[in-house]
């Protein structure tokens, strides 16, 4: 009974969606509402207006920066949710964890990882800092840092990697993305503009292009660091959960 009802519901929904798709504006038509209303301004003026060569960065950090601020909050919120369900380690407790992985990784792997991680980190910094002019940016860079942490932790264990990135640092930087946005927003307010204005029309009218670039980079760095720390903290919380589960 329940199954029939849910199947019927899904079928109805699918029919509805297919019906819409059939009636949607044709794909790729230059006369589409999507192609004629807001998009042209973004494509034509983004570079002058936002002083970023990468139009996508211009849109997500500048025209719709507030949305992105919300999105980074979502990421932070995901971490808070994980910590709410799994709980966070007590202060300083993580050093006491023992590596319980069954297979001890070989020296070759250890050496390779030890050798690779700095380069991965360097690359991620490049991705973050260059986001305003080429593909890349805070999200991608942060994900790369997080990835490197995952690699490091799988090989060297929780205890080792939490010595490298102690709870103190993580707790401080998990919200770096939101803080970055808020800082830029508040500076925009103080500079006489609206919240999240990347320029200070009243304070430094002449400095604008370079100011925008620096503020954009500040936001990117915030997003990168914050994202990386969120990933790391989620990873640590999950491993810890595993540790507790195996220990008990």
């Amino acid at each position, binding site marked *: 009974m329940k199954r029939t009802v849910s199947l019927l519901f899904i079928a109805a929904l699918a029919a*509805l*969606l297919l*019906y*819409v798709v059939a*009636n*949607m*504006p044709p794909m790729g038509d230059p006369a*589409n*509402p*999507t*192609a*004629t*209303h*807001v*998009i042209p*301004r*973004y494509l034509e003026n983004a570079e002058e207006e936002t002083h970023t060569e990468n139009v996508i960065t211009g849109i997500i950090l*500048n*025209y*719709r*920066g*507030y*949305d992105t*601020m*919300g*999105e980074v*909050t*979502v990421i*932070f*919120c*995901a971490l*808070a*949710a994980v*910590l*709410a*369900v799994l*709980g*966070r*380690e*007590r202060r300083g407790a993580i050093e006491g964890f023992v590596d319980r992985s069954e297979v001890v990784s070989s020296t070759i792997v250890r050496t390779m990882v030890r050798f690779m991680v700095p380069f991965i980190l360097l690359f991620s910094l490049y991705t973050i800092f260059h986001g305003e002019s080429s593909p890349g940016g805070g999200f991608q860079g942060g994900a790369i840092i997080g990835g490197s942490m995952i690699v490091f932790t799988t090989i060297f264990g929780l205890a080792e990697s939490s010595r490298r990135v102690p*709870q*103190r640092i993580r*707790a*401080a930087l*998990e*919200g*770096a993305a*939101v*803080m970055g946005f*808020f800082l830029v*927003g508040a500076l*925009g*307010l103080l500079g006489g*503009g*609206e*919240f*999240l*204005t*990347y*320029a200070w029309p009243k304070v430094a009218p002449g400095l604008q292009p370079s100011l925008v670039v620096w503020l954009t980079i500040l936001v990117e760095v915030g997003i990168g660091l914050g994202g990386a720390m969120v990933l790391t903290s989620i990873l640590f919380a999950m491993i810890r959960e595993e540790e507790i589960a195996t220990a008990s």
Partner: protein
Amino acid sequence: MGAWRHFPILMITVPLLGAVLLPFLGYLRESWVPHVALLPLGFSTVLGFLLLGRIPSDGYLSYHLGGWEPPHGIEIRVDYVGLFLMLAICGITLLALVFSRHYISKEVSRGRRTAYFVLFLLMSGAMLGFAATGDIFNLFVFMEILALSSYALVAITGNRNAVRAAFKYVLMGAPSSIMVLLAIGFLYSATGSLNMADLAQRIAESGYTEVLTVSYILFVIGFGVKAALFPLHMWLPDAHSIAPSPISALLSGLLVEVSAFALLRITFSVFPRGAADLIGGTADAVGVAAAAAVLYGGIMAILQKDLKMMIAYSTISHIGYIFLGLTAFTAEGLTGAVYHMLDHGLAKACLFLCAGNFIYVKGYRRIEELKGAWRQMPWTCFAFALASISVIGIPPTAGFISKWYLILGNVRGEKWLYACVLLIGSILAAVYCFRVIYYMFFQAGREGAWEDSWNDAPPSMLTPVWMLSLGTLFFGIFSYLVIPSLLKAAAFLL
């Protein structure tokens, strides 16, 4: 326009900033977290009160983020109704937060307490952003924060039932978010815009009626799940009754209301009167569902044995009230709906916090166990009674005023049947509320169930409870402070 035009954005972002700063404070001084968490919300509340009187009831404050004028940038648009709701959010969250400090020591384990406050602030900030935004994608973003934080807060006690309830909530909530996203996508494809005011114009000119109709249907289903509109309410009773009481208060007193408010915005600001033929059928269906919700919620609430479960079902019933006010499509109905958001928020939050007091002091959850509670916990019991009276809608509480306008709105809209349903709903409410009141005051409890001397909850838990219940009384007696402006604002929306 002075500096106060920045107040809404600060009201939204300061709690979010507070949330991201809390983990570090939690690392340094965990015991300070509950107190410091009050600061950002208190700040928002103060700003909200300063905004009072600055926004005319037939106008709005439009704030362009980053200085980009809409539709290219994001707009925050606070009208009178929005400000009214934002103030309600600030007040109720602040009180629930005060209440939390003692309460969570009972239900939330040590390692999770900082996360609790972080999520609490995120949820509050997101609700404020949700109520204030004038951009439909931004609405979605805040809805996600709201949804994610509420999932986690339901599960925060970490026991099996809580996780299961939260999982049920996620199972219904995540598809509903996707539906809203799809609906936004469809709207965008048909109009090319995301700004609500701009959308209203473009919808009137757009030829893609099928896309727009389906998009509205998806909005209704998506927000309907979030607002627990019958028959999409399945997640609510479990989640609301198992979450820690202050969270139940937020979920029941605010979250479902702001979801209903989002649908209000979409119905009245995005799909304007010119598009009545697009949404007419769906709105009628919503009316039927809401009427069913009033009856179903009321009857189920009567059948419950667990106090919080009963309050949760009562919420389902009252969401029906709000939607019946929306679908009346009259200024009075809309006023009733918005006013009901406030007074239901106050009363429901109060009831859940009272239930929290019983759990905190005695660990009692079942209605049966409340027999004779009056002797030990008179303050909680009286607050409970007062809030129940507002839930039923007996004068002079705010519940009466909103019921008056809801019924009047439906009568004006010539929906006599719905007016009768609302009346029957209040009879059902009387049945389930009076049962509890009767047990508390006029029944003798089991031997030893209650102490003979006063031993109520600590003041930091009683104060919020009493402020909420007196709030229902205040807004009942002094409804003339708000109602005329609301009526004007509602007429403006229509």
